[in-house]
């Protein structure tokens, strides 16, 4: 079974703070993704990575950056958190040779 873990289930931060969200997979997958999910807007892709140190912008990368130093770990960074970044953040990974994305449990981030 694919296992995707995210560092926190719930997180509360203040405006202007630097925020790190971490995603870890244990299956040696190359492709990893970060989405955010908001009511009425669905899931939207922020960034994805297809290998260590490789990244591509998704549909809504503004205000975010990512880091992939090791294959199993993909971090989403909010350089200066703002209230409009309050959301559910979901990480996903894809098995080699497959197309299906498997999701982690999500991190509910609140920025005050």
């Amino acid at each position, binding site marked *: 079974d694919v296992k*995707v873990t995210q560092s926190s289930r719930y997180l509360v931060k203040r405006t202007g703070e630097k925020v790190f969200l971490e995603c870890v997979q244990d299956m040696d997958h190359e*492709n990893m*993704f970060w989405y955010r999910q908001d009511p*009425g*807007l*669905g*899931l*939207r*892709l922020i960034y*994805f990575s*297809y290998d260590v140190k490789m990244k*591509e912008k*998704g*549909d809504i990368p503004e205000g975010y950056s990512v880091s992939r130093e090791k294959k199993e770990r993909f971090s989403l960074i909010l350089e200066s958190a703002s209230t409009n970044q309050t959301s559910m953040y*979901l990480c996903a990974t*894809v098995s080699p040779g497959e*197309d*299906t*994305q*498997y*999701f*982690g*449990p*999500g991190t*509910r981030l609140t920025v005050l």
Partner: protein
Amino acid sequence: EDQVTQSPEALRLQEGESSSLNCSYTVSGLRGLFWYRQDPGKGPEFLFTLYSAGEEKEKERLKATLTKKESFLHITAPKPEDSATYLCAVQAVSGYALNFGKGTSLLVTP
């Protein structure tokens, strides 16, 4: 531009009352269509992948079908534990990313 539209937005069924959820899509070359189930406060859970028109997949009370323009998720004799949001997503041949619909929120009452 790829587009995914799910209907209805919300559906309430009595236990045992079968129905279907719709996912209409436009994509420049379909690589795959995916169905997920999502419970409140949790990440989406993978259900099915469909690759070509005419393909069907089944799992317990769920059956997914695919045409060139839409997919249906048929729920036969649903139970309260089937209550969840069902998400549809498409992947184009040109890329890695999934383009999601906004989901159908299903409530099954005893």
